[in-house]
């Protein structure tokens, strides 16, 4: 779960929004619905009374963890995306095409069980250490072996990295997976767990086998990337400056410095953007977004990413029977919620798999709000009138959906107790095995996959082996369906694309219509705010809410 922590003071935000701050133009600013947004014909630009070669980014919070073996939060990635590089990366705005980065070319054997990468020559880390195949192996052996969180990504395929990762020559590295892995290139392009650190860190800053430089990397970073960290002031700002020896060079337009500021209050971020003090700001409330979108001095993202928002339905207690969970799906007022509460910042989800995910079925069954139908299903499930369900959400994320569900449930004679928790408390609730009476019936939550693969996305959310009684994973509704398990397991090694699509079409139908696991609420839109003179921004549906600083410049 890499969701960023929400800003506080939601009520205060509404007050500010109600006051209004900008002077929105009736003409909407143009941001293409995907691909590369940019300014429209309007020349309007916010004031800039500071160094134009410095990019200033305002986010709600950042965390300092620069160890690719453990850094698994968006609030960390938004810093080290400028510092670390992987062998390959997703191309432009695609979730399923890759392009070279530290590796120039790569190929797989016939059954795609072995992948070979040919590295770019002459690359060095910012500490002068040469980048070669041994550095790649050292990094991934460490990331998988330390088991600090991101090991799951490559470790799902490589269980014995010391043997399975082979240094063929200084510029060639091979991954012998041992089973067909048709999408290993997408795995290697994942944002998390694939970054490469200078191996000198592992040698010179290790306090032992369980550390291998981990503690040092919590406050320092040495990569091959375009920027190096100049200063880090936790809770305040991080300053990145150009790596003078960057292997792709500094020809063309690039920022000399990047300042990432922690501004938890959404209204403050907006004010700083409007006054010209920041170039990029995380989106605030839907009202803020509407106002900034209408201001020609800025462009606002409108790009659908793979971040799905949903309500987990507990397959136990009152919702144990599929009919009861179907009833919950019929009760949710999708259109009203998305239009009135979310104001278009979420797009209606098409089932439990996000659009753009490989094998996503566009013809999936879609529920329409139908109270009598829900009543009928609840009667069939034997849910007695007056039964009380519980809905849990974390502060700043999901309260409104809970209130709406409370109202909807009242229409069929049920009660809903709404429980607010802090993020860490809810995270523990979702992943800890507890007696049925201590579990909530519903949880408001969100997820996106590490890479574009239906099994990667599904396993941790729907597989019976990922329920809290089996592992601290996120099948928090204790969903158990033998056929879904079978499909997910087979999907990891299925090389026939048509067969894979057919399998997951079936899984989707089970998970949505026959035996629902969730109420799929919506798919997130990246609505980051940009000054109109910022060029080079390309939204990618999996590199969510982070930026390729090297590609950005000021026009």
């Amino acid at each position, binding site marked *: 779960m890499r969701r960023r922590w929400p800003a506080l003071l939601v009520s205060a935000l509404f*007050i500010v929004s109600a006051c209004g701050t900008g002077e929105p133009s009736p003409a909407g600013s143009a941001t293409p619905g995907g691909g590369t947004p940019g300014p429209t014909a309007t020349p309007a630009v916010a004031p800039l009374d500071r160094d134009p070669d410095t990019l200033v980014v305002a986010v709600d919070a950042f965390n300092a*963890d620069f160890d690719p073996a453990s850094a698994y939060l968006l609030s960390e990635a938004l810093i080290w995306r400028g510092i670390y590089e992987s062998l390959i990366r997703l191309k432009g705005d695609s979730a399923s095409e890759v392009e070279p980065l530290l590796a120039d070319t790569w190929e797989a054997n016939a059954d795609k069980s072995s992948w070979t990468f040919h590295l770019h020559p002459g690359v060095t880390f910012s500490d002068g250490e040469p980048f070669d195949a041994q550095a790649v192996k050292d990094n991934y052996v460490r990331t998988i072996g330390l*088991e600090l969180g991101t090991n799951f990504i490559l470790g799902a395929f490589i269980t014995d990295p010391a043997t399975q990762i082979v240094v063929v020559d200084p510029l060639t590295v091979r991954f012998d997976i041992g089973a067909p892995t048709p999408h290993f290139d997408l795995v290697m392009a994942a944002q998390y767990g694939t970054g490469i650190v200078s191996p000198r860190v592992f040698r010179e800053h290790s306090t032992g086998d369980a550390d291998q430089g981990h503690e040092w990397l919590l*406050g320092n970073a040495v990569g091959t990337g375009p920027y190096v960290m100049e200063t880090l002031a936790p809770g305040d700002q991080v300053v990145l400056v150009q790596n003078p020896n960057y292997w792709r060079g500094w020809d063309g337009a690039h920022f000399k410095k990047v300042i990432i500021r922690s501004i938890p209050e959404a209204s403050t971020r907006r004010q700083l953007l409007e006054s010209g003090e920041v170039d990029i700001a995380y989106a605030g409330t839907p009202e803020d977004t509407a106002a900034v979108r209408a201001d020609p001095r800025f462009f606002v993202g409108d790009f659908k990413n793979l971040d799905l928002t949903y309500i987990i339905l507990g397959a136990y207690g009152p919702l144990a029977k599929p009919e009861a969970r179907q009833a919950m799906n019929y009760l949710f007022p999708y259109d009203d919620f998305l239009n009135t509460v979310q104001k278009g910042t979420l797009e209606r989800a098409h089932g439990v798999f996000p659009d753009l995910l490989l094998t996503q079925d566009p013809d999936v069954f879609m529920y329409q709000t139908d109270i009598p139908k829900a009543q009928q299903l609840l009667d069939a499930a034997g849910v007695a009138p007056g039964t009380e369900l519980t809905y849990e959400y974390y502060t700043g994320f999901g309260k409104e959906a809970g209130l709406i569900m409370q109202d909807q449930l009242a229409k069929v004679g049920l009660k809903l107790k709404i429980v607010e928790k802090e993020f860490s408390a809810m995270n523990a609730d979702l992943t800890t095995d507890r007696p049925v009476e201590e579990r909530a019936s519903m949880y408001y939550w969100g997820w996106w996959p590490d890479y574009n693969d239906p099994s990667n996305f599904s396993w941790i959310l729907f597989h019976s082996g990922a329920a809290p009684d089996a592992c*601290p994973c996120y099948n928090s509704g204790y969903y158990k369906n033998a056929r879904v398990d079978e499909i997910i397991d087979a999907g990891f090694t299925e090389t026939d694309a048509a067969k894979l699509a057919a399998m997951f079409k079936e899984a989707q139908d089970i998970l949505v219509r026959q035996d629902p696991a969730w109420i799929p609420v919506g798919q997130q839109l990246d609505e980051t705010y940009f000054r109109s003179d910022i060029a080079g921004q390309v939204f990618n549906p999996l590199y969510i809410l982070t930026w390729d600083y090297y590609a950005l410049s000021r026009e």
Partner: protein
Amino acid sequence: MRRLLARRLIFVVFVLWGVTLITFFLARVAPGDPARLIAGAHANAAAIANVRALYGLDQSLVVQYGHYMGDLLRGDLGTSFVTRRPVAADIGAFLPATAELSLFALLAGSSAGIALGVFAALRRGSRSDTAARLIAVASLSMPAFWLAMLLQLVVYSRLGWLPFGGRLDTGMAPPPQVTGFMTIDSLLAGQPETFVASVRHLVLPVFTLAMAEVGLMARIVRTSMLEVIGEDYIRTAEAKGLARRRVVVRHALRNALLPAVTVLGLEAALLAGGVFLVETIFAWPGIGRYAYDAIRASDYNAIMGVTVVGAVIYVAINLVVDIAYLYLDPRIRYS
């Protein structure tokens, strides 16, 4: 005085012990599992168990408390689960920003409040008195977050008079840290531009925090002054022909300040509550932000560290208030 200090120090030990005891157990019985958060979203059970063992979270609460107190007595506040740095270092990095903000707010608020209170008392029943009382009520009634946002919209956004957010202008390098007070450090470093920027950045958050202080102080000082100026010794002073100014400042105000000093001590502590909110709105990198993140992440050591340091400051302020009584009213004796 020495006996007073000795007695207070014994008292401090018990207060701090009580604070650690309550905070330690409350933080741990609250929902949340820091081991899962530290280990990462996809960490397996073994990795989470490793984290628990690493931070001693797998031991009984009593044993954990024993270890914590042992470390505390050696001056070690532990390591933050979130920043992974020593809590003492984190507090050292975040506290000066809060201290600078709070101190300026306290000074500005109490000075303005005392002046307003004296002004109103000396013009009792007049229109000026009514106006002063209205100002006091208005400043007390105005929620800090509302005022902060009003200033953001009007002074910063519309008028562009003052900066908003952070301690310095974007991209401006901070001076070498000596005191942690940006205003002082910039002067020590001979950086007048940085000094001006730091003062300009202080104005709005200080004004926001000081407003409630102004109202409270003005009301207390006015009431107190009205009592004092009716006393016989004031009439005597006036009858002896002392200048009005001297009577007010030397005789009336000094005695009227006793309740104000009590409130000032309490206000200094209460300011911490307001600072949490104001720091968030003004993106001020202080201890409030640090504590907020610590609470959200069940970062036990950081929560404990902030609480212990806060308690020490609170007790120290109260001690200063007690000593101030002795100076302001020589009749006071602590038995």
